[in-house]
């Protein structure tokens, strides 16, 4: 197997102190091989966003270690979080400018990225002039502009309609194939995980921990409504149910 891009070793994250302490993640160990498309699946509040924030370096773990490749990870938030004071092109160029890339080189790279997410000619618009799906694509282009080897995505398509989501699934899969990125993709949606992932990791709640793992060997590109995808979704859903039942027994 290829060397791992992201390694989490017995990671624990506790918020608050004393009686207020709340363990969001407990003893999470995880290796993500370079180039893998990994989906994290779990109930609301089980610690998926926390896990991504730890990998992104936005928060430190309470104990354990997190390692990512040099240059860190890029992150796409659930909300596109575009800057309304910048044009679409300047939003995408933001990480390039922070790296000190010259204006011409930046412009050229932004054009490339706009083309990659099918938004040629939209660079001079302001974010509020775009539809929700277009904004998500700008956020994707901006995350790609960071040129990190790892891309973290926190339920990026949760707020979109099914049709737009299908299109963006195709797009993210194509980008992943073209760039050889390692992607950690968080979702509530079992079908979405089965559609996209090389591997699905199921998280249990209270405290957040790894409860199960599915390797997905189905050929790509997959259709979200293909029978194999549906069947895999059923298997994963059953496992999620038993994880949830386990939680109920524990509490």
């Amino acid at each position, binding site marked *: 197997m290829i060397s791992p891009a992201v390694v989490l070793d017995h990671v624990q994250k506790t918020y608050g102190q004393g009686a207020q302490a709340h363990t969001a993640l407990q003893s999470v160990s995880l290796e993500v091989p370079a180039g893998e498309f990994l989906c994290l699946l779990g109930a609301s509040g089980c610690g998926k966003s926390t896990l991504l924030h730890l990998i992104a370096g936005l928060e430190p773990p309470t104990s354990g270690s997190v390692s990512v490749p040099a240059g860190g990870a890029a992150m796409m938030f659930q909300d596109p979080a575009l800057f*309304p004071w910048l044009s679409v092109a300047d939003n995408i160029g933001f990480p390039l400018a922070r790296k000190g890339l010259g204006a011409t080189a930046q412009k050229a790279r932004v054009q490339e990225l706009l083309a990659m997410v099918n938004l040629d000619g939209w660079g001079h618009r302001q974010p509020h002039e775009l539809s929700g799906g277009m904004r998500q694509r700008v956020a994707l282009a*901006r995350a790609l502009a960071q040129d990190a080897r790892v891309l973290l995505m926190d339920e990026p398509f949760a707020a979109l309609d099914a049709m737009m989501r299908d299109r963006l699934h195709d797009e993210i899969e194509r980008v992943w194939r073209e760039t050889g990125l390692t992607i950690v993709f968080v979702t509530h949606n079992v079908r979405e995980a089965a559609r996209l992932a090389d591997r699905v990791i199921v998280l249990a709640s209270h405290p957040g921990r790894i409860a199960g793992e599915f390797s997905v060997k189905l050929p790509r590109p997959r259709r979200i409504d293909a029978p194999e995808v549906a069947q895999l979704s059923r298997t994963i859903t059953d496992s999620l149910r038993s994880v949830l039942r386990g939680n109920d027994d524990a509490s």
Partner: protein
Amino acid sequence: MQASSSTPSPWLARLAALATAILLWQVVVWSGWKPVWLLPSPLTVFLRLATLATEPAFYWAIFYTLVRAVSGYAMAVGIGVASALLMLRFRLLRTTVAGLLTGLQSMPSVIWFPLAILLFQLGEGAILFVVVLGAFPSIANGLLHSIDHIPPLWIRAGKMLGARGWSLVAHVYLPAAMPGFVGGLKQGWAFAWRSLMAGELLVIISDRPSIGTRLSFARELSDAPDLLAWMIVVLGIGMLVDGLLFSTIERRIRIKRGLFET
């Protein structure tokens, strides 16, 4: 486009308000409440204003006043922004000084004149001192409050995208705070302009006859038309700066960020 038919254009509304005010003035004059040499009619005053506007001294007075306004205001913006940034950087400073700042903001600027005159004598320094003290607290407070209300997501995104330290301030904090900050700048201008007018009435510098000087002279000579004409100039400058400068900037920002209801 359709909305404009139901709500009158802002300029039309302003014109109507102005006409009403002038009419009220005329009515008071007609009522004979005061003799006309104390309270002249709008027409007399506007004719006087027209005469004044033919003299170079009229423009010099406006020029002297505007130079003071602009330099005092520029200093207030510099000090206001710097003090707000310092307070953001050093939390302790903020917990101790923020209350004081609001206190300063609520203080009538005339209160500073005795001290200013002690410190700077009857000169430009005294006026500048009061203008800066009058304006900078609103500017600092405006910036502080608008930074407090930035959605944390933008800060996180900015950090994630490689902005750290000063670059985070320059490329995320400041632009994100801009709409609220313009409000603070606008309020700061209003305070600066008021302080300046108070200053020019108290501190007369005779080799630079500014608007305030002309107002004082008019009062001493009991020249009511002159006095009212200069008051209209003060009102006009205030409205122009607000209407042309700040409101335009605010509008631009709101349109650019899609903050207008359509």
